[in-house]
């Protein structure tokens, strides 16, 4: 038995096929979900992938958050459905208030694409079980609006509760507060991050590292053993 993991395609989604590939390589079954469709097809988990949903017009993720698929997703995520938001997906999750805070434009005002070193701060979420806390990984980062911000109270709470899941190392690429690269909700089922684990799953491709694969094996293991 394997797990069925949904990948939502919004108009302007870019990494949907790549994310499906990563899910397949981890041994799970990818299921394509469509933004106009409320039906989540009874998947066991969902990935909101990177891209520029609705052209990132208004604000990154701001329009996608109101699409039909998100209605069901918000409801089920609150009930425990594991959801991973990568890059634009992370932006959508903050716009949907499934994760706190918001993303602003990079402090240097440029798009940035590079390999980024991260520390896994929380290995207890649904998506990070195959890492160890404190583990350092390198995966691609590529975005225009990646500067994580939140008010002081929220930041303190995130830090105190161990909900900063990933932190940038060797140089903050965008001005994110507390070097935050990704966070989790209280329950640990909803995780968002700006860098792209789905682009670090094959030794020949991209930067040639597979440091992103454990995201997908983690969730598979969790779902299959659950």
């Amino acid at each position: 038995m394997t797990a069925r993991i949904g990948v939502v395609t919004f108009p302007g989604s870019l990494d949907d096929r790549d994310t499906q590939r990563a899910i397949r390589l981890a041994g799970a079954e990818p299921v394509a979900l469509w933004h106009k469709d409320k039906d989540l097809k009874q998947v066991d988990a969902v990935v909101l992938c990177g891209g520029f949903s609705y052209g990132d017009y208004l604000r990154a993720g701001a329009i996608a958050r109101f699409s039909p698929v998100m209605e069901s997703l918000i409801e089920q995520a609150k009930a425990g459905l594991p959801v991973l938001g990568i890059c634009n997906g992370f932006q959508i999750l903050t716009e949907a208030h499934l994760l706190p805070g918001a993303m602003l434009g990079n402090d240097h005002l440029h798009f940035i694409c590079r390999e980024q070193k991260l520390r896994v701060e929380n290995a207890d979420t649904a998506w990070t079980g195959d890492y160890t806390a404190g583990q350092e990984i390198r995966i691609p980062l590529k975005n225009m609006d990646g500067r994580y911000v939140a008010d002081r109270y929220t930041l303190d709470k995130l830090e105190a509760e161990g909900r900063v899941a990933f932190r940038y190392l060797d140089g903050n690429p965008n001005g994110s507060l507390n070097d935050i690269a990704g966070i989790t909700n209280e329950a640990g089922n909803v995780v968002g991050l700006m860098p792209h684990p789905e682009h670090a799953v094959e030794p020949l491709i991209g930067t040639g590292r597979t440091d992103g694969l454990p995201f997908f094996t983690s969730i598979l293991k969790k779902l299959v053993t659950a």
Partner: protein
Amino acid sequence: MSRTPLDTVEHAAATPDVELPWAELGLKKDEYERIVEILGRRPTGAELAMYSVMWSEHCSYKSSKVHLRQFGEKAPESDALLVGIGENAGVVDVGQGYAVTFKVESHNHPSYVEPYQGAATGVGGIVRDIIAMGARPVAVVDPLRFGAADHPDTKRVLPGVVAGIGGYGNCLGLPNIGGEVVFDPCYQGNPLVNAGCVGVMRHEDIHLAKASGAGNKVILYGARTGGDGIGGASILASETFDDAKPSKRPAVQVGDPFQEKLLIECTLEAFAEKLVVGIQDLGAAGLSCATSELASNGSGGMRITLDDVPLRDSTLSPEEILMSESQERMCAVVEPDKVDRFLRICEKWDVIATVIGEVTDGDRLEIYWHGEKIVDVDPRTVAHEGPVYERPYARPDWQDALQADDAAKLPRPQSPEELREQVLKLVASPNQASKKWITQQYDHFVQGNTVLAMPEDSGMIRIDEATGLGVAIATDGNGRYTKLDPYTGAQLALAEAYRNVATTGAKPLAVSDCLNFGSPEDPAVMWQFAEAVRGLADGCRQLGTPVTGGNVSLYNQTGEAAIHPTPVVAVLGVIDDVARRTPVAFQEEGQLLYLLGDTREEFGGSAWSQVIHDHLGGLPPKVDLERERLLAEILISASRDGMIDSAHDLSDGGLIQAVVESALLGGKGARLIVPDGLDAFTFLLSESAGRAIVAVPRSEELRFTDMCNARGLPATRIGVVDGDTIEVQGQFQLTLEELREAHEGTIPALLA
């Protein structure tokens, strides 16, 4: 408000003496007279609009056509070519049932006027050319040329162009895997923004731009038509800039990459369901181009109802609708019973689609507005039978003096310290410096198939996950070499791109080009053009790599001063298994460095002559295409059989530039020994063509050198990968740290 009466075909016939603004639309008097002769009456305003844009230099190739014919006439026999010159883009067979289409185009003039939008819409246009062939775009490359790196206007143009390419391409989800960035004062008022795209499809999915089958519907889909870009092709791309004329900003189009992304997905879905008979993108000359090309390439005529075109601005006149270059639009020809399905796919992707006409039995292109016929032409006369000029050309009188001004007489470094200083200055010079600050603004990783991206010698994309089949693409051009000798310069560009593809382990298959030159009305420029085309066509024949298509950009000059003649050549290659690819970076300490090819004292047009002496004169390096072919075969065999772990082509900046790049990328230094018979200066800085360095694991040394000896390729052991310095024995030493600082610090310091 009074309105002039509609200029219908009937009205035009009845009012032969009405004066039309043909000169304002960029037509010459004899061209206008030719239109009158073709039609047997004066054209209507709408017809004049169509002819003026389609007969512009940009669309008709009227000055270049007589020379470009050589690409067909001299084309080498190639089994790989599935679709040749003339379509939106050429198509090449890469095996396993896959076909690849690729093309490079220019968006030079708009990018100077409005850098962000000019560059962005350049990417948009080339991507639509690729989807119009039936292919999914899989990568883009951007060969760029700017004025002096420290000129204040470069700081306006370059960041805008780079942000535009990134802003558009990143949003489409296309990895940017290659290209170049070159600075030279000759491009100050005429930056060259060339954009290339690679697409992949199955053989059976190739689509062509033609409208056949009477009764088939013509569907316009994508963005609404607005007033942007009117006259872009005829005015912007076909005239010299002149300070005295008013700003041409309104002629630059504005791009919406989100719309284009939807267009890609809905077009590919329509292809997959076999709903499309013919297809054409709307680029330069907009609807005028799409309708006349579709109609003239098909078997019948076409009738269009212009009132049905969805508009962004309801006040547009029919002439403006025909000339508009609004972006993100395409035109498909669909059988009547498939129209509903086609429209449903567009609706799924929130793309506006409208039936605007149909294919007819006749051979006329007829366009109606408010029920009246405003265009009635033979579409071939618009699309394919434009004027052809035999522009006079003559070798400029300064060419001899330029070539006589030999770089050999320039003072050379007199001591190891001076040589060291010059090397450090060279690797830090804007042209030789790392372009990371630029390329990291482009997404390299999207689609998850990027095997190699810049600063590798060629970009490489996997196209089949199961077999590992991949394609590689490299673009190169050297305006300095080409100025010294246009024939040789064009061949050097070809040779370098060919070599760059082979260096990564891929077999070069086919060529596309973007020919950037000054005004064709200057006989000296025309001579440069004629020589460059002759050189490229001869070179392609010799290397067995046909030209599949390309683009010509003329009028790249400000006042009397033309840019250096700059043919940019793209070579596409195939690799059976991307796992065999060879990267630039040094992989392991202890590996042996071999120099392949012959090194001569060749400094004409070199980076050294430019950076150290601000000199351009003499002759460019010699070209030996048979040697290039042999070198490529060795590099491909060595990569396939696992004999080399890294390889780097030698070009501008010479051997030391290549060693520095391989060392910095791999984080490993090298010890070099000057080979017998060469002085250190020539060894390190000569730009002789047909060379590469390779790093050979010790266990493979004998096998590798035996292969080179047997095939007759000079292979000289020049050192070893080692440590954290680059040491040239008996000369000098440079730490990787100081090299990195010099090499990577320059561009951010100038532009960030």
